[in-house]
């Protein structure tokens, strides 16, 4: 299951979807809103998503994880809306018989989700400034890689 959620994430409920008598290992990842980014004090974040495309791309990532690693189940949910410090932005959980696959798949899912799923983040700084992350236009010399061609 890959879900875009306007409601706060409920890790216990998400994890219940993973219960399996064959599972010996459960690896999870949570992304939390932290108080600094790139040296600036962060006050709050807005996330928005293209829910249809995000859920399609998210399900592709989960299917890739199932194909690449020996896992039993995987779930990812991403919050959208206005978040404050300490709020949970994303939850990933993976079960497997053995821990190596659970860790590797969990990491694969969050890495790919951050790189590919159409979710955008606007940071609100203590200074009053705001920024859409990764959307600055400083030219190719700034070290921002261009989007991968399709």
């Amino acid at each position, binding site marked *: 299951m890959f879900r875009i959620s306007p409601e706060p994430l409920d890790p216990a409920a998400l994890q219940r979807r993973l219960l399996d008598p064959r599972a010996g290992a459960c690896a999870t990842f949570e992304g939390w809103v932290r108080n600094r980014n790139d040296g600036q004090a962060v006050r709050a974040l807005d996330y928005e998503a293209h829910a249809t495309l995000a859920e399609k791309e998210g399900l592709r990532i989960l299917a890739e994880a199932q194909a690449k690693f020996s896992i039993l189940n995987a779930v990812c949910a991403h919050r959208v809306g206005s978040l404050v410090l300490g709020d949970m932005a994303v939850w990933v959980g993976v079960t497997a018989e053995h821990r190596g696959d659970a860790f590797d798949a969990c990491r694969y899912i969050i890495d790919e989700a951050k790189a*590919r799923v*159409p*979710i955008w983040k606007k940071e609100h700084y203590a200074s009053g400034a705001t920024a*859409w992350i*990764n*959307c600055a236009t400083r030219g190719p010399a700034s070290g921002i890689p261009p*989007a991968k061609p*399709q």
Partner: protein
Amino acid sequence: MTKSIHVQYFAILREQRGLAQEKITTSAATASEFYDELRGRHGFTLPADRLRVAVNDEFAPWGSALSDGDRLVFIPPVAGG
């Protein structure tokens, strides 16, 4: 030949355009030409090579030919997590 395209804007594009969606009549042949046209008109700061495009709810190549009634979304650099 002109066609009517439904465009949805997200994130920085939505803010720069000042609205979330609109219907536009264009003679652009491809998604790429269409974005260049909109960029000129609305002053979008991001060049096409920093974006992806989705046609009718699927990621698509920039060279995709446009058809009347297509729904397009330009995808700014993502930042989930």
